[in-house]
Every structure is written in C-alpha cells, then in structure tokens.
C-alpha cells in the first residue's frame, strides 16, 4: 500500500490530496523562497489521526510538514526535501475552553484570529486576545509558536510569551503536555514553576512534533481605548522618541511605519514614492485606561514628551484621532488595523515578503537608516515597520516588500533581503520567522554551543528526522 492509500485509511479519502493543483499551492507562499512540491496533503481531524500519521511516517521515513493556514510569509511551510507530506491542521479548529478567572483560552491549531475575536466578543465580551499583524484567517497557534507579534506585544512581549501550556504529539507519536495543564484539564493557568518544556515547541518552526492544543493568555478589555498619531522626522530621532515614550509605560501599543505605508493606505498607487519634507514615519499609538481621566492624563504625558522632542525638530507632530479621522476618512481605521484591512493593497501582486528581526533598542535608529538605504538602493518601496515590544525591552523591525513574482524581481528581492538580513545580523538582531537560507547564515555567527544543543534536542525528539527536515538549516 502506498503512502496516499495509508493516509486515506487514517483520515478518509476526502482528506488526502495529491493532485497537481494542490501540490502546487502547498509548494509555495507569497515570499521569494524557493518552491518545492509535497507528494501529498493530509488533513487530520483528531489527535488520534495525527498519531497514526506520525506512526506511518516513522515506518516509511516520510517527512511531515505541519501547516495551518500558510500565512507565515517566511517560506516556513515549504518542504525542504522531496517526498514530504503536508499535514494541514485546519480541521482541528475548536475553542475548547475559555477560563474567565485565570484568563486563558485553550484552542486547537485551526482556530484563527478572526474566529477567536468573534468567539470572545460573542461569549466573553470583557476579554480579548492580541490581534495580529496579518490577515484575520491566520492561525492563533502558529503565530504564538512562531513567537510572532500582535497588538498587545508592545506591553506583553512576543506571542510565545502568551503561551500558558500546550499538548503535543512528539515525532515518535507520544502525546505530551507542558505547562500547568499537566495537573489535569481546566488548569492551564501558566508555565511555572516547572521545567519550561513549552520551549521544546516554541520557535522550532514545526521541527519537534505537532502541537494539538495550546493555552493562550487572554487580557481584560479596557473600558476606554483611544488612538493618537505621531508623525516624526529622522530615523534616529524617531527611534529615540519611541524609546522615550515606551519607557513611560503609558502606551498600550505603538506601530511605527514609514510614511509610504500610510500613503499606500490613502490609495496612493504603486510604487509609493517618498518626497523631501514629508514626515519619515507615522506611528499609531493606542492608549487605554479604566477612565477617561486616566487616558487623558496619559495623553498629557505623551504631549510632554513630544513637546520636548520638538525642541530639536519642531516638525514632530502628535495628532488626536478625531483629527486623523477627518484627514484620512475611512482609511484611519485601516491604519489602526494595519495590516488586516490593508492586506488587499499589500497583496496587490502575487509576491509579499519581509525581512524582520528583533532588535536591541539601541540599534533601532541605525537599523531604520541602514535598512532604508538598502531597500531604496534595490529600487523597492520604503515600507519599514517598527514595533517596540515587551514594555520597551526590545523591538521588531521589518522592511516589507510587495512585488510581482517575475524572475528579475524575484532575484532582486532575494538580493535585497539577503543584504537586509546581513545588516540585521551585524547589529546582533535575532531574525524573525527565519527562512532556511537565513538560518544558515546565522549558524556562522551564533554561539556554537547553542547550535549543538538544538541539534541534540532535535535528534533526541525526532530520531528518524521526519519533522520538517532541513528547516532552520539543521
């Protein structure tokens, strides 16, 4: 019996596909990363089915690539070796439990951000989960396991920090738990004090098994939430101002972006150019509180900081949202919700990519300026995005490129991203959603002990190397 037939036996005929069209779709994502077709796609619905698939894969030495909705924009679900099977987890899509006291949700891989928001709004209106910087049909679990970011990351850190615990099927088929859920159901309140085994799955890009449930932290919805916009000039000046604002701990969220992105939201057509005299950056800042007075006082502090920055450059400008709404009309909402509402323009072509990394705050200004020079030299739109994270302990910076996937542009994108990546590594940044080519570059620079350790862990957990082989250059 062939692999296809064995998979069909496990999940049923309707949930295995090896058609040319399907293999083509799963061979790529929107990025410039090299494509490779899987031999089949299987869509399990239960943990038992996943265990059976893994058992079969170990017997036949079939590589497995965990996949949910393919929105990672990092080439992370593209098989690195021939003969791979994509394990599409979208049918596991239950929100199993929401605990209002300990404020967490236990969910399956296929639960999306759109799904989660609607469910919480309908059933637990006082609670919220972070909202991400991607389309609403992105998997909550994948975003958390990839240590991505959302609109609460400014305060609470990367989404990996939102994980309270998880259940996973190991590459050898055993079902395990990590976090306080080891004491039984309805108990997913946290990860400590324990050996933190969530770390065996978080940040591994699907190399260490399939996570079948994850408990993620929810947060109270603040009674008052408002936004202001900050327009700034100069890379270093902008970075310094954001650091100053961040350290006051008054801001719920701050998304700083090149003005080109805001102009793109205002329907300026491709390619969006920059002009002398325009602000370099627009930052949308969310401020929340329990009362109007609390929010107003936070805005007073914000005004003071900007007022001080104006002594150096009087053009820096803080604008309340009522004015932004008048100036930008409906597009003001698209700015607040960037890039969810803007995805149609970001995805104007068939190609979309970014080179992003987590940076030490001291390097933000240099990174913004150096990245700008690289992107402009390669002839792409300037679309930098900087998000201070974890109460200002670090920040995510990326340069977004939308592009048509013709050969010439693909090559140009690859060169540009490679240069951006080298530049980020020179600043000791940690690349985010690292594609394989980039991970290999990291190997040359990172602590050799770390590399040896992750290889050892991978070999121990996955002796047949069936889980996403080649990923992260391992």
């Amino acid at each position, binding site marked *: 019996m062939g692999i296809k037939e064995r998979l069909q036996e496990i999940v049923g005929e309707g949930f295995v596909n090896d058609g040319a069209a399907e293999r083509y779709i799963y061979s790529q994502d929107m990025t410039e990363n090299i494509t490779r077709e899987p031999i089949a796609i299987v869509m399990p619905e239960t943990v038992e089915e996943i265990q059976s698939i893994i058992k079969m894969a170990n017997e036949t030495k079939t590589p497995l690539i965990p996949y949910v909705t393919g929105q990672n924009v990092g080439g992370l679900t593209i098989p690195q070796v021939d003969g791979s099977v994509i394990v599409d987890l979208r049918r596991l899509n239950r929100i199993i439990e929401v605990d209002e006291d300990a404020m967490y949700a236990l969910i399956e891989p296929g639960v999306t951000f759109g799904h989660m928001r609607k469910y919480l709004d309908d059933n637990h209106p006082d609670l919220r989960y972070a909202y991400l910087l991607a389309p609403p049909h992105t998997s909550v679990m994948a975003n958390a396991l990839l240590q991505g970011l959302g609109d609460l990351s400014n305060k609470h850190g990367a989404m990996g920090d939102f994980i309270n615990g998880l259940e996973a099927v190991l590459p050898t088929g055993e079902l395990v738990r990590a976090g306080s859920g080891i004491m039984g159901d309805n108990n997913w309140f946290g990860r400590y004090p324990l050996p933190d085994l969530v770390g065996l799955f978080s940040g591994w890009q699907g190399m260490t098994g399939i996570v079948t449930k994850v408990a993620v932290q929810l947060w109270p919805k603040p009674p008052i939430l408002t936004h202001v916009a900050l327009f700034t000039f100069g890379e270093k000046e902008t970075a310094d101002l954001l650091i100053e604002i961040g350290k006051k701990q008054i801001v719920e969220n701050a998304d700083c972006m090149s003005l080109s992105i805001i102009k793109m939201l205002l329907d300026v057509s491709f390619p969006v150019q920059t002009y002398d*005299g*325009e602000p370099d950056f627009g930052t949308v800042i969310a401020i929340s509180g329990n009362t109007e007075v609390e929010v107003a006082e936070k805005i007073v502090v914000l005004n003071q900081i900007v007022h001080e920055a104006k002594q150096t450059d009087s053009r820096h400008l803080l604008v309340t949202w009522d004015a932004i709404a008048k100036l930008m009309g409906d597009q003001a909402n698209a700015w607040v919700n960037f890039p969810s509402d803007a995805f149609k323009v970001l995805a104007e072509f068939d190609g979309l990519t970014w080179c992003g990394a987590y940076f030490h705050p001291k390097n933000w200004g240099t990174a913004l300026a150096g990245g700008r020079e690289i992107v402009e030299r390669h002839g792409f739109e300037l679309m930098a995005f900087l998000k201070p994270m974890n109460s200002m302990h670090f920040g995510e910076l990326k340069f977004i490129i939308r592009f048509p996937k013709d050969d010439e542009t693909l090559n140009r994108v690859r060169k540009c991203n490679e240069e951006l990546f080298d530049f980020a590594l020179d600043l000791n940044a940690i690349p985010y959603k690292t594609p394989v080519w980039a991970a290999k570059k990291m190997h040359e620079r990172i602590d050799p002990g770390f590399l040896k350790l992750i290889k050892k862990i991978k070999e121990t957990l996955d002796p047949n190397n069936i889980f996403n082989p080649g990923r992260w250059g391992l």
Partner: protein
Amino acid sequence: MVSTTPDFIGTILAQLLEKQLSDPKMLAKVQRWKMKVILDTNFYPVSMIFDDGLKIQKGVVDAPTLRVFMTFDTLIDLVKATKSPVGAVLSGDLKIKGLFRHPLATYRFYKLIVSALRG
C-alpha cells in the same frame, strides 16, 4: 475632479476637497475660479491651482494669488476646530500673503478650505 502629486499633504488635501467637490453646485462654482494658492506649511509647500478644476502639486508655483503660511500644528487645530481661522490670523499662527490684494480669492479659498478641513 482633483488631481495631485502623490505626496502626503497633496493626497490628504485632494481627498478632503474631493468630498467638497462631489457637490455639483460647489464643483460648478470652483470650476469657474482662476487662482493659484500656495499652502506653505512647516513640512513643505503645496500649490493649489484652480483653473477649470483643481490641480494640487508639491512645491511652489510662480505668481500665486495667495500664499498661506501655517504650521501643521495650526492646520490640525483648524481641523479640530480648537482654533478658528480668524483667531489663527489674529494670533499670527496663520498668515496670508495677498489677503488685501485679492479679498475675493481669499474669501473663496477660506470658505472651501474651512469646510473641507472641518469635514
């Protein structure tokens, strides 16, 4: 109705004025105007050329009818109506070169821009 260079201020002004000029009566009126206005902010100047329609372009045109000076902070105050245009002129936050030579153009521009900024 309104054409513009794709700069930040031009794009915003064009969107605001498009809304005003979607009123056919207003459009008919504005299409009869012949004047050039420079809006000179602390970001950069844009020129608004009224000539059988409206063209907005980044930079300064020759021989403007009016030249309006204000910072972007003042512009935002006008948008939020925390400052009136007359108040801004009186306080010196808004200066208009050509005010006395072209009172009709000033009046027309004032009416159009205030209604556009206030939405």
